[in-house]
């Protein structure tokens, strides 16, 4: 695919990536983000003082600094006068921050931008923010139903079992694969291989999902440096540059008839034709349309495995196989390292847990390392096109396609 876009513009380039390892330390999230940012700047060979735009992903559970993440990180790295933006789209926050930086560069208002996201997460179930808010769907679902995120994941998993005959053993096979992948990732929180027996002994949280089927809440930080093609070409090491072929940040189309967090009900399909593509299918579709690539071009993918079962849904949503075929694709070995299209070579959320505003950025860090051939023991052979996909509650889709 040509890197020139329809309007004659060159694709924006990923110059550098940086991560703070995922874990549970309870330190200030700004420290994780600053570590990741400095690593990304060093990797890019760009000084912080040369950065002319900063886009950050917000965190909701760390007070005001988390709501103004752009200025929080600009201050931490040292005020230098540049404009910033603070982006929130739940789990898709990182992708929205990436898109803010990309658009800024494409518009000519910036040459080189830093994108950063970091979080310090509480232990256990994510709950809504404190206070009584009967008008807030996120508060309502917890108060009236006790519908946690894993409750929704389990509803999707059960639906998959009933529609396609998926089994708990299929879900366990996803965990086994991703835990093996994650063992080779120094940034992963859990670097332990899981066996089928260990998974079967894990406590049931929301039937059919066990504790180890569900991603943990984690601390972590990730950052990337993006630049215009023109700026990138002035730097020495252009062989390591990876281009952003597409970013999709779509929202659902009405009527959204697939039950979505945090709602207690779907839209009604009376009075409006259902959209041709369901919301989850539309996320990668938009990125394929923009990039000119199709599912057959994808060398490796990072999908948002909030649960093991959800990874199987994503195979279908991003077009790796037809609906109902994900289990067969998994068991064929195609999505394992060494297979046709490895999925979650990083180890995925199964090995990381979820650091909300960092997660979509971390996906792009992994894909960039893969495209460069710098992923070490988890390297996907001859990786040329990488796709990340993710969904944030309240209707945020995110998909990034990178290419070398």
């Amino acid at each position, binding site marked *: 695919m040509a890197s020139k876009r329809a309007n004659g513009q060159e694709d924006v380039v990923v110059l550098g990536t940086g991560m703070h390892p995922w874990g549970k330390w309870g330190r200030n999230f700004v420290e994780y983000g600053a570590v990741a940012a400095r690593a990304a700047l060093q990797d890019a060979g760009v000084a912080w003082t040369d950065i002319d735009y900063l886009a950050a992903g917000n965190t909701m559970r760390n007070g005001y600094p988390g709501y103004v993440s752009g200025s929080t990180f600009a201050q931490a790295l040292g005020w230098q006068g540049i404009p910033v933006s603070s982006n929130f789209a739940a789990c898709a926050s990182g992708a929205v921050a990436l898109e803010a930086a990309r658009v800024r560069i494409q518009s000519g208002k910036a040459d080189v931008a830093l994108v950063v996201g970091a979080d310090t997460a509480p232990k*256990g*179930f*994510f*709950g*809504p923010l404190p206070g*009584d808010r*009967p*008008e807030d*769907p996120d*508060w*309502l*679902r*917890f*108060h*009236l*139903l*006790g*519908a*946690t995120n894993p*409750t929704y994941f*389990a*509803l*999707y*998993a*059960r*639906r998959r079992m*009933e*529609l396609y005959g998926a089994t708990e053993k299929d879900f366990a096979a996803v965990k086994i694969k991703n835990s093996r992948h994650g063992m080779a990732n120094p940034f992963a929180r859990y670097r332990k291989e899981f066996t089928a027996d260990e998974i079967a002994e894990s*406590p*049931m*949280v*929301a*039937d*059919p*999902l066990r504790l180890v089927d569900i991603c943990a809440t984690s601390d972590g930080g990730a950052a990337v440096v993006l630049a215009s093609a023109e700026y990138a070409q002035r730097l020495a090491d252009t062989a390591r540059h990876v281009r952003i072929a597409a970013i999709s940040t779509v929202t659902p189309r*009405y*009527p959204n*008839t697939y*039950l979505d967090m945090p709602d*207690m*009900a*779907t*839209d*009604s*399909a*009376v*009075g*409006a034709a259902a959209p041709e593509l369901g919301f989850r299918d539309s996320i990668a579709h938009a990125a394929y349309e923009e990039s000119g690539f199709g599912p057959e071009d994808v060398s490796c993918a990072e999908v948002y495995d909030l649960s093991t079962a959800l990874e199987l849904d994503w195979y279908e949503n991003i077009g790796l196989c037809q609906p109902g075929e994900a289990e067969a694709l998994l068991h064929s070995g195609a999505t394992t390292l060494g297979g046709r299209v490895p999925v979650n070579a990083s180890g995925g959320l199964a090995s990381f847990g979820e650091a909300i505003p960092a997660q979509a950025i971390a996906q792009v860090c992994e894909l960039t390392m893969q495209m460069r051939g710098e992923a070490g023991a988890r390297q996907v052979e001859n990786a040329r096109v990488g796709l990340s996909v993710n969904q944030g509650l309240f209707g945020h889709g995110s998909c990034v396609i990178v290419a070398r």
Partner: protein
Amino acid sequence: MTLPRVPALEGFFREEPDGSARLLGGHCAQCGASFFPKQFSFCRNPACEGAILDDTELSTTGKLWSFTDNQFTPPPPYPQVEIFVPYGVAAVELAAERMVILGQLAEGTNIANLAVGDTMTLIVEPLYETREEIRTVWKWKAVDK
């Protein structure tokens, strides 16, 4: 003395004398869409100019779309109790409204007996108790099981 039963939150459902529940939603007379909860005064269909949603009561039965259970106590604002009893959660599709609605499953439902497509009906059961009242919520109950 039996405590009075009142909805945990006003405006979401109503209890009939026979213990069944009526969900209170919004209905757009212009495009026919229903909404639950009513949430806003206007229609959210982008192709519809409906400016007013009528109050409506949704269908009381539907087909099971999916189901699960909560085996650990959810965090606040879910009412916290000393001894947590695991309970089921169901998503049920209403045929007339063509929408899926979440609810807890009736007490004592064994989810091992459920299957997608089962007919479900709405009832009212306690969510939690205060000293003065039993605070209730709508729940889905399997018909014929």
